[in-house]
């Protein structure tokens, strides 16, 4: 079974600074997908970024980018020029595309952007 670990329960950073959220995972699969989801106070789960394991290039989405280290099974999220609206819980998630596409989530990191 896959496991996802987020070792930072809470983080805070000044507005406009850069912050990196950590995630590690464990799997015996070679092909899989990794995601970062954002959950603001409204509680809805919003996809931030995704990475295919077979792609060496790190995914980027505007101010959000990942550092995907397949051998180390590490998948960190970098938020540049952080904004107040980035305040939320961030969940790292793993998906085996051959396993009914269910997501396995980490325990989350609560990120607070300080004005």
């Amino acid at each position, binding site marked *: 079974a896959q496991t996802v670990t987020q070792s930072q329960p809470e983080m805070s950073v000044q507005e406009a600074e850069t912050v990196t959220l950590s995630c590690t995972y464990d799997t015996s699969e070679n092909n899989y997908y990794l995601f970062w989801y954002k959950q603001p106070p409204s509680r809805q789960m919003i996809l931030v970024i995704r990475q295919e394991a077979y792609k060496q290039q790190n995914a980027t989405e505007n101010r959000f980018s990942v550092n995907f280290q397949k051998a180390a099974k590490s998948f960190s999220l970098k938020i540049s020029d952080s904004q107040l609206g980035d305040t939320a819980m961030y969940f790292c998630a793993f998906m085996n595309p051959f396993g009914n*596409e*269910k997501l396995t989530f980490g325990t989350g990191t609560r990120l607070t952007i300080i004005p």
Partner: protein
Amino acid sequence: EPEVTQTPSHQVTQMGQEVILRCVPISNHLYFYWYRQILGQKVEFLVSFYNNEISEKSEIFDDQFSVERPDGSNFTLKIRSTKLEDSAMYFCASSPTGSTEAFFGQGTRLTVV
């Protein structure tokens, strides 16, 4: 932009009562899911549904739970006899065939008293 919608947004029920949580997935999606998030904890997979049948379920999804797609548009989660520990946020999600992105609804907060 199409979205997954869930109703109600908040449901309060007495212990032992049956509840039905409703979801309308995105219309051209074929994979449907229910996830649960107990307050302050991580999001947990409950069940996946494809081609009108359960494709996978977690150990949380015991005989008290059932899912149904009654009319080709709605996707429901029924909890037959609610317990206090069923209090949680329940998320419905859907994805199209061949895609890996799950689209989540806004959730239903279930409170069992």
